[in-house]
């Protein structure tokens, strides 16, 4: 029973994919859209069912289908595991997933390849579910690479534009760099513990036998590299902003809400492993903190509405990693969920704006949209407040928990984190002001068509906005449902912070900081009514920021270019050299032959002479060697 339902949960999106890829064109846009959405809704229902079930029983369901890969000293089975963590993830993946599908029906309606779009989206959901449900590292890896593939397909969805294709390729390859790390981690775990199965792994590790700290650290590091690839942490984050080339719903679903949180999921899954590698945890925390700050600073000056959101995503992911590094997994999870709500909402909102402006993404050409599109405005405002961490919206609780933990463990990280969140507040409201306030700066005929988006677009916004507002309830400080729910996952229990004066202090500071950021933005863009200059006019440090610290250029210079040069060098020189060595023998033989022909000069005298010489040579040799022969 459970198994079948679980398979339904898993396969519904896959069936949707098949239906869309093969029949989609003939079925027509609405139907294919409907199929795609229903498929995801079904799995949402299933996950809900299991969620409620496990909420009562607390019994994880593990499903073993068949042996998949045989390794000399253990088998890797093809199985799934439905426990608290995976169900939580499933819930918001499928939930937000279905909302975004719904949204896409209208958003992609005038694209002739809509069925393909839905096919890919379904495929993505399928792989995401695989990733989450996998009962061992390798099944997780299937999903892991699968979602990478889907993001490749979706970023490059408008494949006629080679820049988009480049972005897609970049995303895939950077992910693959991470994946190599993941694989290496798998290998190490494999030969350390002779299993990849989460349950067994946990048991083995908690049993605490044959634990080689060095190798565990190595495994942790490798896995973290994998995670940072998928979740866009330094140094592998540059693909995420480029990924905004994809249609906006994709950005919302894949590059904000779900896929990019896979790294957090994986580390949380393996928390018992990381708990044993404090050094790696520190690295994670530091990287996370730095990422969040760097991304935030870049976000300050971006003018493409989606780019801003992209960098804010990176920055928020940084915060989550900070939490992970501090060992506060459940807080990280908490932030993942709240972030999923408001970031999805923000992306979809921006989508609806872009939709209204006929694919105009530059904020300098927007403004004053709040009258034209109130619902979008309200929902985005709520989400922005949430992300900025304004009491009592969801973002406040989650972010605040993170900062508290940071404060308790290392003030420096706390400072960085708070700084990042202040900046977040600033650029989010920069975005809001530039987009919705003052008067419209776009072209006339755009102004004409300004209108609120249709219900199909706004409905998901509303739902998400509500969630973004109240999402914090699942884990209020003191009595947190989430902590309790996730308890069984973690090797060491984390006591929730008892709320003392320091905690209130920190909350206050955070709120003040957020308000400060908002204030500055207000002063800059409402009071002085500034508008960011044209790209070429940008100067000084903001230019550096605007060009993302030239990281892409640096990578280009130190990695891509050399490899290509090397490739050319090999192709043009080494190859020919090797070939000529082999040919050399043939050439030598031919040359010899050519010389030899001179010896064969046709003169009888010479021939006989050679005859006699040969005779004498042999005789004299034999006589010298020995008399008898």
């Amino acid at each position, binding site marked *: 029973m459970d198994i079948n339902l679980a398979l339904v949960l898993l396969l519904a999106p896959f069936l949707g994919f098949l239906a869309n*890829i093969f029949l989609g064109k003939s079925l027509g846009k609405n139907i294919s859209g409907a199929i795609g959405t229903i498929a995801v809704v079904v799995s949402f229902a299933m996950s809900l069912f299991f969620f409620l079930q496990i909420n009562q029983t607390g019994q994880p369901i593990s499903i073993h289908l*068949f*042996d*998949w*890969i*045989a*390794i*000399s000293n253990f088998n890797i089975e*093809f199985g799934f595991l439905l426990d608290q963590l995976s169900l939580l993830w499933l819930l918001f993946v499928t939930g937000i997933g279905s909302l975004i599908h719904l949204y896409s029906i209208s958003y992609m309606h005038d694209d002739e390849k809509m069925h393909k779009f839905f096919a890919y989206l379904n495929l993505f959901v399928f792989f995401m579910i695989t990733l989450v449900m996998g009962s061992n590292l*390798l099944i997780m*890896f*299937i999903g*892991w*690479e*699968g979602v990478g*593939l889907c993001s*490749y397909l979706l970023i*490059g969805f408008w*494949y*006629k534009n*080679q820049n988009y*294709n*480049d972005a897609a*390729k970049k995303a*895939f*390859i950077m992910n*693959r*760099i991470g*994946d*190599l790390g993941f*694989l*290496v981690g798998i*290998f*190490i775990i*494999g*030969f350390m513990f002779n299993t990849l199965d989460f349950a067994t792994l946990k048991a083995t590790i908690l049993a605490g036998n044959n634990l080689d700290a060095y190798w565990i650290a*190595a495994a942790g590091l490798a896995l973290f590299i994998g995670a940072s690839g998928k979740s866009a942490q330094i140094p592998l984050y540059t693909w995420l902003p480029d990924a905004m080339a994809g249609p906006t719903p994709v950005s919302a679903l894949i590059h904000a809400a779900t896929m990019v949180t896979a790294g957090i999921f994986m580390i949380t899954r393996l928390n018992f492993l990381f708990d044993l590698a404090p050094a790696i945890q520190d690295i994670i925390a530091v990287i996370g903190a730095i990422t969040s700050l760097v991304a935030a600073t870049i976000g300050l000056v971006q003018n493409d509405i989606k780019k801003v959101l992209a960098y804010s995503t990176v920055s928020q992911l940084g915060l989550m990693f900070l939490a992970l590094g501090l060992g506060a997994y459940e807080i990280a999870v908490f932030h993942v969920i709240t972030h999923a709500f408001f970031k999805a909402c923000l992306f979809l909102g921006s989508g609806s704006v872009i939709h209204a402006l006929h694919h105009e993404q530059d904020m300098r050409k927007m403004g004053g949209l709040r009258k034209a599109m109130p619902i979008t405005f309200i929902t985005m405002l709520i989400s922005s407040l949430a992300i900025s961490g304004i009491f009592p919206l969801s973002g406040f609780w989650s972010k605040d928990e993170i900062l508290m933990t940071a404060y308790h463990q290392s003030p420096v990280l706390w400072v960085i984190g708070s700084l990042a969140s202040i900046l977040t507040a600033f650029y989010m409201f920069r975005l809001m002001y530039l987009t919705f306030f003052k008067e419209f700066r776009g072209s006339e005929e755009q102004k004409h068509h300004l209108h609120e988006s249709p219900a199909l677009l706004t409905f998901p916004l509303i739902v998400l906005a509500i969630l973004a507002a109240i999402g914090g309830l699942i884990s209020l400080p003191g009595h947190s449902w989430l902590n309790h729910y996730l308890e069984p996952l973690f090797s060491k229990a984390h006591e929730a912070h008892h709320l003392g004066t320091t905690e209130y202090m920190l909350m206050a500071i955070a709120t003040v900081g957020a308000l400060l950021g908002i204030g500055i933005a207000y002063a800059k863009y409402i009071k002085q009514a500034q508008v960011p200059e044209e790209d070429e006019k940008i100067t000084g440090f903001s230019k550096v920021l605007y060009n993302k610290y030239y990281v892409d250029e640096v990578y280009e210079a130190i990695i891509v270019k050399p*490899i*290509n040069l*090397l*490739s*050319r060098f*090999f*192709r043009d020189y080494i*190859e020919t050299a*090797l*070939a000529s*060595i*082999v*040919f050399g023998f*043939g050439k030598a033989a031919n040359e010899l032959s050519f010389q030899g022909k001179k010896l064969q000069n046709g003169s009888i005298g010479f021939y006989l002479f050679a005859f006699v010489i040969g005779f004498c040579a042999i005789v004299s040799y034999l006589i010298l060697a020995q008399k008898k022969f």
Partner: protein
Amino acid sequence: MDVSFILIILLIGAFATYFSGDKLAPKVALLFGLVSLGFSVYLLSLFNAGQNIDFISAWITKPSISFSLKADGLSLAMLLLNTALTPLIIFSAFGNEFRNAKNFYALILFMSFAMAGTFLAADGLLYYIFWELALIPIYFIALIWGNGDAEERKKAVVKFFIYTLAGSLFMLTAFIYLYGKAGSFLIEDLYKLELSSQEQLWIFLAFFLAYAIKIPIIPFHTWQAKVYQKAPTVGTMLLSGIMLKMGLYSVIRWQLPLAPSAAKEYMTIFIALGIAGVIYGSIVALRQKDLKKLLAYSSLAHVGLIAAGTYTLNLDGLRGAVLQMIAHGFVVVGLFFVAEIIYRRYETREISEMGGIRSQSPKFTSMFMILVLASVALPSTFNFIGEFTVLYSLSQIGIIWAILGGTTIILGAYYMLRMFQHVMLGETNAKLFKDVTTNETIVLVSIITFLLFFGIYPKPITDLITPSLENIITIINR
């Protein structure tokens, strides 16, 4: 009922094809290909039923050479690879017109015959004979039906022939030497030999020369790219799909068990060569202008990894290698066929002259995409199983090997996607591109189905090959 029937069928097939005339030849060839496939499946069932399907008979009295064919799981797996790919390859050629087709298809079947023999032979000399026989048909296929400038082609093909022959003649010398020791060419007698480490080293090197050239392992690969480029696509498929697997198979079957201590002692060197091949091949593939050459180098990279796997001398390595051989056999055939499909429409192999095909041919694009993904070993494709197992075995030897070998995951994705982007994507191409015909679809779909199915459920193949591999491992560790 024993394995010799396969050879007989294929041989008869070759002659039947020759005498059936140019009109009928393709169909007859396909028919015999399918028959042999069916028969080998039947043999497989017999084998699984535990029947003895070996065929042994005396042949030459002095020196004693016997005509003995033995089929264990490994041989059968390779045999199936051969008999499954042959009809596919034959069928894939249906789209093209060949002058005196009867010779062409007859040669294909003859080659398949020789390769089947190589996989089955259990007598050193018999094995060598089949090994050489396989060389002759491909030589003529490439020479007569190849493409490009005739002079260049001749140069490439002759170089290929002489080069590979050179390698294998040293193998022959090694075999004769072993015969001098054992007084028999039978594999089990050769396995029994106790050779000094010095002898083993020389034997090992002699074999290595033969296989390194055939596989090819760098730096012995110089013949490959040109021949792949110049040969007709069918020839390229035969070469890359099956023939190069002969080399890898032989490493497992002959080289390692015959000179185990040498293999153990110098393991790292040969692993390093394999890995070097992975990296070198991938990097060279990045900047290829010719589609077939690019694929050639990619296959250089992949077989490098496989070779590294075989030289790890542990079960995972061998198993992964065999799985990867099969997977690579299929995917590379598919990819070369894709190149051919494009050639049929655009008359070019220059990547620069392609692009913007996707919008004209959705079906083709999807299938091509899947093949690309398979070749970069995306999980849930069969290639992933093999590559994962091989890399795992490498990590057992030293994590660094796994990391270096793992670069194929990154570089492979790089050049394959780059290629895909330049071939398929971008603004719609001015030239019309007709989407795949039914025949082409059949070929590609069957390949893809195979790859995906066994990607999810590789158990049958694993169970088939594992016992014989364990067997070989024990012989190596004797």
